[in-house]
């Protein structure tokens, strides 16, 4: 059905990105309300879109009235509207949380920061809805350039981390561009659906294989799949907390979504998993990445760096689901995009609260007083950590469950072992923190009481928490329980509607 709504969210963010610097010339306090209005608007529009898509089928929008394959087409199907909703909801909560820490993290730079954040989300939403391969490249670069800026604003080391990310990211984007060049030369089209229809008529063409490898390589860098993850730990560690919480749940997931979209919906399952062993390669690299990321996360002393390495591992789960190339693995991968966005979002927000409260987020400095000072943040951390480990009924359990079922379905016992072992490794590095906060006895004190009685608000103990920092974290992490309990509905109503053909 042709409809205007697919184009609305990217255009809304683009308009916000342009109007924030203009409106904030006189008074820079305007930037934040405009950001929040745009972000809330995007949540409303994408919820409306997903309901409309589920009721009436895919929506398309043709730019300038040019029909595909000549014109650029925007497509919302259940998969893209689902990912768009996840991205916009998590961005809304992260930006809500940003109001409380902007003085500490980005003093005096709030106007350019929020404009960049809007541009970042414009790129993300554009990548999700576009049905055109070259348009995807343009949005990918908008998204990445805004991301480099968001990272580079951070600490003293942040520009170096951002520069390395920029070099790697540009190589990735150029490989992607080279790949679609090959694809265009053999098919003469850039529209995803059109290319999908043409490719079966040219079997065994080496240029298609070259295109596939180049696109995989390019997206693998953006997604930080195992040997290409070098840019990620530094970038996430030194970025401002809001950027980490914005880029960690959204950035790599978008690349994973592009990989799913192009591998399964442009090249087709037949080509990527049977004619060429690309999905097997992705699965093995991801399995190594899961173990490597978990082991490296255990070795870190700083919470944000630990979470960054844990992201490498979690991306591995999504890659593993893609690489299994069967319906269960696909469900696991898409469900894990949702789960990991919420888990990593809330964990990075808790790290931000810790930095605001104690100045640093070194794991060695965590102690038992935090459970009185930051009771709700620590409770949120616990829920998200349990979900990362994969304990039912939190959301993380169910995506791992589908991945495990997918591995069993393929008879790949090695992958099943990787999933189980990595859950144990996750448990090690998260219980290390939970033990310090909840289980150890309070340190010996001299005279004064180290744990003053907690401040209460509305009858709940709130410690020394700031409401604007606490409420978004609590909502995001406790919604992990809701997602876990409602996962059967999400899988049945949304994800299973677009199982790629031939799986």
């Amino acid at each position, binding site marked *: 059905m042709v409809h205007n709504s697919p184009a609305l969210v990217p255009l809304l963010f683009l308009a916000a990105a342009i109007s924030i610097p203009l409106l904030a010339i006189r008074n820079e306090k305007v930037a934040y309300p405009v950001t929040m209005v745009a972000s809330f608007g995007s949540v409303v529009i994408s919820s409306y879109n997903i309901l409309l898509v589920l009721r009436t089928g895919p929506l398309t929008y043709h730019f300038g009235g040019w029909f595909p394959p000549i014109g650029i087409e925007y497509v919302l199907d259940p998969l893209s509207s689902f990912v768009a909703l996840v991205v916009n909801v998590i961005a809304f909560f992260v930006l809500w949380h940003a109001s409380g820490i902007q003085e500490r993290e980005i003093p005096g730079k709030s106007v350019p920061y929020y404009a960049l954040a809007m541009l970042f989300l414009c790129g993300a939403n554009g990548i999700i809805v576009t049905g055109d391969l*070259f348009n995807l*490249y*343009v949005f990918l*670069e908008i998204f990445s*350039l805004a991301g*480099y*800026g968001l990272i*580079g604003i951070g600490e*003293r*080391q942040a*520009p*170096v981390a*951002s*520069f390395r990310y*920029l*070099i790697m990211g*540009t*190589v990735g984007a*150029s490989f992607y*561009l*080279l790949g679609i*060049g090959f694809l*265009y*030369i053999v098919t003469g089209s850039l529209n995803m659906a059109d290319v999908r229809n043409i490719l079966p008529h040219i079997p065994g063409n080496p240029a298609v294989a070259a295109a596939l490898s180049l696109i995989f390589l390019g997206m693998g860098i953006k997604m930080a799949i195992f040997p290409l993850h070098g840019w990620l730990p530094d970038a996430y560690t030194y970025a401002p907390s809001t950027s980490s919480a914005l880029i960690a749940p959204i950035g790599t997931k978008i690349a994973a979504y592009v990989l799913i979209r192009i591998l399964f919906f442009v090249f087709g399952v037949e080509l990527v998993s049977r004619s060429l062993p690309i999905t097997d390669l992705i699965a093995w690299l991801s399995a190594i990445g899961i173990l490597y990321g978990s082991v490296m996360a255990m070795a870190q002393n700083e919470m944000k760096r630990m979470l960054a390495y844990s992201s490498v591992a979690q991306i591995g789960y999504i890659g593993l689901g893609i690489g299994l190339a069967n319906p269960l693995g696909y469900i696991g991968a898409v469900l894990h995009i949702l789960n990991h966005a919420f888990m990593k979002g809330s964990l990075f927000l808790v790290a931000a609260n810790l930095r605001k409260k104690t100045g640093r987020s070194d794991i060695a400095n965590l102690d038992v007083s935090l459970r009185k000072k930051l009771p709700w943040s620590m409770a949120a951390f616990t829920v998200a950590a349990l979900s990362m480990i994969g304990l039912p009924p939190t959301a993380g359990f169910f995506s791992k469950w589908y991945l495990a079922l997918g591995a069993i379905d393929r008879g790949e016992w090695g992958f099943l072992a990787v999933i189980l072992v990595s859950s144990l490794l996750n448990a090690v590095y998260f219980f290390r923190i939970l033990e310090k906060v909840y289980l150890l006895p309070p340190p010996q004190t001299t005279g004064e009481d180290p744990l003053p009685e907690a401040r209460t608000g509305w009858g709940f103990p709130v410690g020394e928490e700031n409401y604007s920092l606490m409420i978004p974290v609590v909502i995001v992490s406790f919604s992990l329980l809701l997602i876990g309990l409602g996962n059967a509905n999400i899988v049945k109503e949304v994800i299973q509607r677009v199982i790629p053909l031939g799986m």
Partner: protein
Amino acid sequence: MTDFLLGHFVYWSIIILLIIGLYGMMFKNNLAKKLIGMIIFQVSVIMFYVASAVKWSATVPVLDPVTGVADAAKYISPLQHCLMLTAIVVGVATSGVAFSLAILIYRNYKTLEESDLLNHMKSS
């Protein structure tokens, strides 16, 4: 063999450019040199697209009264050039961001040598 080499000389030169760019990014220690490598890499991709649009015995895609529109094959495809205009703009934006990051790095650490930067980052 000579036919294979000479017949694809455009692609060979593009591959050589790609490798020079990758070499610059991976093995050079100075961030400015890495940036030069990145730009060479991007240019090679642009050259690849432009080369794919080359067509002998055809003219520029502007309506020519002599040639007419009856035989569209007498015009070369303008699409690759249009795509590359966009890609050039993207490339310029990328190098702009990269240069401003390099300036920030130099202000923070007074050096652009990557080995020195890594030492500074570890110590601080």
